[in-house]
Structures are given as C-alpha cells and as structure tokens.
C-alpha cells in the first residue's frame, strides 16, 4: 500500500554520525548485555496520488531466540510509529512510554519536509525505538516485535486487527468518566509526591528548553556579526604597511574563533537541544501516566463506593473488586518501578548532556586562547626584533 507511483529518493544518504552511535550505546545498559540493536536512517520521500510522505529505514540486529532471523530491514512512516506508541500505551497504561517527535513543529520557519526537520525527526525516532528496546518490559512487547520485523503489507493487516475504533472510544469515555470522579481521594502518598515533583519538573524543564533555544539563537546572531568582523581587518591591512601583518594576524584569529563558535553551536543543536526537548515531552507523558494510574484507582474506588451503597449482590461485586484491586496493585507497582528507572535515566542523561556542553565550552575557550596566544607570541617576537634592530647603530 506504499508507493503506487514513483519512489522518489531525494535525500543524500545520511549515515548516522559517530557521536550519535556512541549516544546510542550510552543509553543505559552496557553494550555487552544488549541483544537488540536498532538503527533508523535513510529517509526517503514517497509521492502518491493522495499524499506525499517520508519513510525511514529501520534496521534491527538481534541474537534473541524469539526472533526468526538475526537481521531485519523494514521501511516505516511516522504513522506507523504513532500506531506503535498507542499500542504500547494501551497494553501498559502505567508504564512510561518514550516520547515521539511531534507531528508538525509550528514554531520557527521549519518546512514540513525540510532537511533539517527530517533529520531532527529521524534522530528522535531512532531514540524512541532504542529507549523501548532498553525497557525491561516493553522490549518484549509483541507489537514492538511486529513493528521491527513485519513487511509493509503484514504490518497493515496486523494493524487492522485488535479492538475496533468504537470499543476504543468506549474505553476512553469510561476513562474520562471515572477520572471526573477521582482516584485522587485514596491516592497513596508516594504518587502525590510524584505528582508534585512532576509539576515542578515540568515547569523547570520547559523554561530550560526555552532558555537553551534562546542561547542558540543569540549565539547564531553573534556568529553572524563575527563573520563580518575579521574581514574588516584584512581590508584595513591593504592600506597599511608597517602594521599590515599585525592586522592580518588579528583577522585570522577572529576567523578562527568564528569557526570555533560554529562548532560550539553545532554541539548545542546536536546534544543539548534534542535532550531538553525530549524531556519536555517526557514530562507531559509522565503527567499522563499518573492520571491513568489515578483513573484505574478511580475505577476501584467507585466500585467500592457502589458496594457500600448496595447491600445486595455482595458476592458479584467482591469478585469484581478483587480483580480491580489486583489491577490497581499491578499498576502501582509497574509505575513505581518504571518511575525509579526513569528517574535514574533522567539524571544520567542530564548529567552527561550538561557535562558535554561544559566540555564543548571548554574546548571553545581553549581553542580561542591558543589562537590569540600564538598571535601574541608572533607580535612580541617582532617587537623584540624591532627593538634590537633600532639599537644597532
């Protein structure tokens, strides 16, 4: 059902850069323990009569027994990722499912199919699949396996199975209904704490995201002005004789610092900005997970209340209530475990990202320092030579 008409491959091959390869492994568990390696690359554009869309190549290498083969290569589009995410949420309502890149970035002048947008999305999709692969529970999810291995037609037929749209809507309605009633009343202390934490965290991470983008913008403007600054000195050196060399030296120093600034900016956009953005999305997801837990609790609570009112049909109710109690306990435990895990990862990610930014800054200043110091050395050597030659009779 994919390309009926031309398959138009427009992008130059975008191999994954070495640094992001390392990031892939840095995600969490040591490489030796991993048995599932996934890469997302090679975006291709497809034009049909109805629409234009992009597919990405998903390559999976695994040593797991439950996989029939050890290598798979499939093509997936954004819709497919959305489907996977919703299936995972359905199956594990109180697990923290990793964030997907947004559908369409409204801010900025990013065109829907611009190279920059596609590359950012590709990296995020790559992260998404790898985070799932690293998750102790989600990694064994059946839909996940199908996503990684099925051919296009297989996937679309599999998608059509499962609870229909109407029943899914029914679930949502019930969930909304029970959320109105609560689940907050009997909420264990731990989850209230989590909620408070997430509210503050969400606030802070959003502000950080904004600040980081602002800094990137300011650095870009600084870079643009600096580009003009160096050449003026070269222009000046053309009218001078004695100080021409010094002026040219200053010009080259400024240009070198300019390049260093470019590197610094690239570091920001490759590392800090995507991570902060990911955690902005994570904070939304976590709030959602906490709500769902509350809903499940709410179902139980409302049934318990109903029992208190209806003195009859105790047996029926108690069986239902027993089931719901189990459900709540499972949900709570799953969430607690996943929460701890998420927290750890978050700290690890933050630490490594900020350290990376700090290192980049250090390199930047070291480079600029070296440039100016060597200029200074060359100038003072000249000065001494001049002084010596002046002393000579």
């Amino acid at each position, binding site marked *: 059902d994919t390309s009926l008409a031309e398959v138009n491959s427009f992008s130059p091959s975008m191999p994954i850069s070495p640094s992001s390869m390392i990031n892939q492994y840095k995600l969490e568990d040591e490489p030796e323990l991993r048995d599932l390696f996934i890469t997302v690359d090679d975006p291709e554009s497809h034009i049909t009569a109805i629409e234009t869309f992009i597919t990405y190549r998903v390559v999976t290498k695994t040593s797991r027994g439950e996989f029939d083969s050890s290598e798979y290569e499939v093509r997936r589009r954004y819709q497919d990722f959305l489907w996977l995410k919703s299936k995972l949420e359905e199956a594990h309502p109180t697990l923290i499912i990793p964030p997907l890149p947004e559908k369409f970035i409204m801010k900025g002048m990013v065109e829907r199919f611009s190279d920059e947008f596609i590359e950012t999305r590709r990296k995020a999709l790559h992260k998404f699949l790898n985070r799932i692969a690293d998750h102790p529970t989600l990694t064994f999810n059946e839909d996940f396996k199908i996503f990684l291995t099925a051919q296009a037609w297989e996937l679309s037929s599999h998608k059509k199975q499962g609870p229909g749209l109407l029943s899914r809507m029914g679930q949502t309605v019930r969930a909304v209904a029970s959320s109105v009633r609560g689940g907050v009343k009997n909420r264990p202390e731990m989850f209230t704490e989590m909620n408070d*934490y997430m509210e*503050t*965290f969400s606030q*802070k991470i959003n*502000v*950080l995201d904004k*600040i980081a983008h*602002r*800094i990137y913008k*300011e*650095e870009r*403007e*600084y870079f643009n*002005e*600096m580009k*003009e*600054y160096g050449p*003026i*000195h070269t*222009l*000046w050196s053309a*009218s*001078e004789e*004695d*100080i021409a060399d*010094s*002026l040219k*030296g*200053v010009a080259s*120093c400024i240009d070198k*610092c300019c390049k260093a600034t470019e590197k610094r900016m690239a570091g920001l956009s490759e590392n800090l900005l995507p991570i902060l953005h990911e955690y902005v999305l994570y904070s939304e997801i976590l709030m959602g997970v906490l709500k769902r837990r509350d809903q499940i609790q709410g179902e139980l609570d409302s049934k318990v209340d109903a029992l208190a009112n209806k003195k009859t049909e105790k047996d029926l109710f108690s069986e239902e209530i027993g089931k719901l109690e189990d459900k709540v306990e499972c949900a709570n435990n799953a969430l607690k475990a996943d929460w701890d895990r998420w927290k750890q990862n978050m*700290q690890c990610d*933050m*630490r490594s990202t*900020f350290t990376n930014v700090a290192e980049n800054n250090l390199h930047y*200043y*070291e480079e*600029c*320092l070296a440039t*100016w*110091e060597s*200029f*200074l050395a060359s*100038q*003072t050597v000249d*000065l001494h030579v001049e002084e010596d030659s002046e002393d000579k009779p």
Partner: protein
Amino acid sequence: MEDCLAKKMEITVSEAEKRTGRNAMNMQETYTAYLIETRAVESQSEGQCAPVDSLWRRYSEFELLRNYLSVTYPHIVVPPLPEKRADFVWHKLSADNMDPDFVERRRIGLENFLLRVASHPVLCQDKIFYSFLTQEAGWKEMVNETGFQLKADSRLKALNATFRVKNPDKRFTELKHYSDELQSVISHLLRVRARVADRLYGVYKVHGNYGRVFSEWSAIEKEMGDGLQSAGHHMDVYAASIDDILEEEEHYADQLKEYLFYAEALRAVCRKHELMQYDLEMAAQDLTSKKQQCEELATGTVRTFSLKGMTSKLFGQETPEQREAKIKILEEQIQEGEEQLKSKNLESRDFVKSAWADIERFKEQKNHDLKEALISYAVMQISMCKK
C-alpha cells in the same frame, strides 16, 4: 624630544565634576568640569615632592584650545579630542553625556589629548597651551586676543568643496586618500565591533537565566541537587563576567577612535595644503593675466579676445595718458603680485617641508600605537578565555 613639556611636567586630568551655571544666552545649564593637575618634574628629588597646581576646565575650553592650535599650526597634525557625543554605542552603553561611564572615559581621553600635545616637539612650546594648563582666569580672553579666528579660513569649513588644483602634490593626494580610507575602515570596524559586543552581551546574559532555573530545580532533586546548585552558581558568575570584559574592550575602542579622529586631522592638513596650492595657482594665474594686459596696452596689440578690445574697437581707443596710467597701475600690481607669489611659494615650500616632517612623525606614532592596541586586544581576548 628633550625639551618636550611632557618631560618637564607631570600632567593629569584627575577628576570630573558636575556643575550648573549660566551659559551665553543666560540659560541654566549643567555641564561637567575637569580638574587638570600639573606638577614640575625637575624639582623632584628623593622624597621631596613638588607642589601640585590645579585648575578646572570644561570640554568647550578644550575645543577652543584645539581650534586655536589647528589654525595657528596648519601644517601640524593636531591631536584630536575625545568624541563630543557618545558614538558607536551598543545597547547597554548609554549615549547620555552625563552618564558616569562616559564622563570617566572622556576624562581619560582629555588627559591623553593633553599628554599628546605636551609631547609634540612643536606644539608643546606654544604659550597659549602652557597658560591653558596653568592659568585659570583670563585664559579665554588671551586666546581670543591672538585673533586666531580671523586667520581661520572659512573655506575649509565646507568639508567637501573641491578646489581645482592644476598641479597637485602627489604625496598629499595619496595621503588624503589614505586618510579617507583609514576613516572609513575604522568607523566600519567600530560599528561592527559595537554589534558584536551587543550580541556577546546577549549570549552571556541569557546564560544567567540558567542560574535561577538550576537553583529552583535543584530543590526537587535529591541526588543531582548539589551538581545543579553549583552549575547554577557558575552560570550567574559567567553572566556577570561580561560587564568587565566589555568595559575593557571599550578602552580598546577608544584607542581606535583616537586614530579615527586623527585621520580627520591628517585630512585637514592635506586640505590646508590643497587650499594653499590653489591660492598659489590663482595668484600665479592672476599675475600672468595682468602681465599680458600690460603687454597688450604697451604694444597696442590685442592678442586675445577681450571685452576691452571690443569696446576700444567700438568706442575708439584710449588716449595715451590713460594708457600710461593704466600701465603704471598694472606694473605696480604686477610687482606686488610677483612679491606675493614669491612669498606664497616660500610659504608653500615651508609648509610642505614641516608638514611632511610632522606626517612622518605621526605615521611612526600611529604604527606604534596601533600595534600596541592590537596586542593589548589580543591580551584581553586571552584573559577573557582564561576566565
């Protein structure tokens, strides 16, 4: 350079003070007065300190002094004053003349001006300059009594008026061209520098926003708390450091500005020469035409077409007496003219010689100063990186 005033006397502009007074139109105004302190160097021996003389001057008096020097020594590249109004500002710098930072930088600039004049081999010997430093009362009247304003050629005020000089001195033309280039390149540089400073300021200050967020975030974290706290603290320090950095850079900008204005002074010397040359050529032309007229009258031939020739053809020739009288007048004029031309030629040659000497001196000074400035800029960049 041994008899330079600078060697004999310590000169400083040590303070600035806001004053209110009444101006020429009897309106109240606020202005800044600067304290000039001088102390003789020679009489200093071990432990014995010479007494300090001091007086107050305001910017307009400095301007008067400089105008006097420019007119009185047209062949000298007279050191420039610091800018009258703040120019090439970036957004944090105030363009207000009363702003303390501006006043401080102007104080340094005025001191620099006095030191430059005092170390100039010719200018330092000027009596008006000396009294500027030592005599508070009655100085203005003294300057005006020299009548220098009459000498000032109003034609020079028209900055872009060109005088069509038939035989321009190539060296001066090149020099004028150079001074134009220097002016244009330095002002371009200062403009871009101001923009760069603005942007750099922005980058640093936004980092400051991190400080608060990190510190607030650290409150909800247990394990990462300390790390975040110290990161936040460093961000604050980082953001604050830009103020000092840019203040130092302002000093560098001032050094460049001095040479921007020096370029103007250089150009002025070239124009004065141009004017002189023009006058010379005009005088020579005038002389030639008078000589021709004389000859025509004497020989009775009309060589060139002239109104005189026409009228004499139409209305008859003049009487011999008239002609004699005319010839006599012309001959006198011619003699005057020849003397004038001679003296002008001499003047011009002197001008060129002394101007050229000063220009060479200026060039050396400029090269030395600019090189030092560039070096100190590098040093500043280095210290900024080290921070």
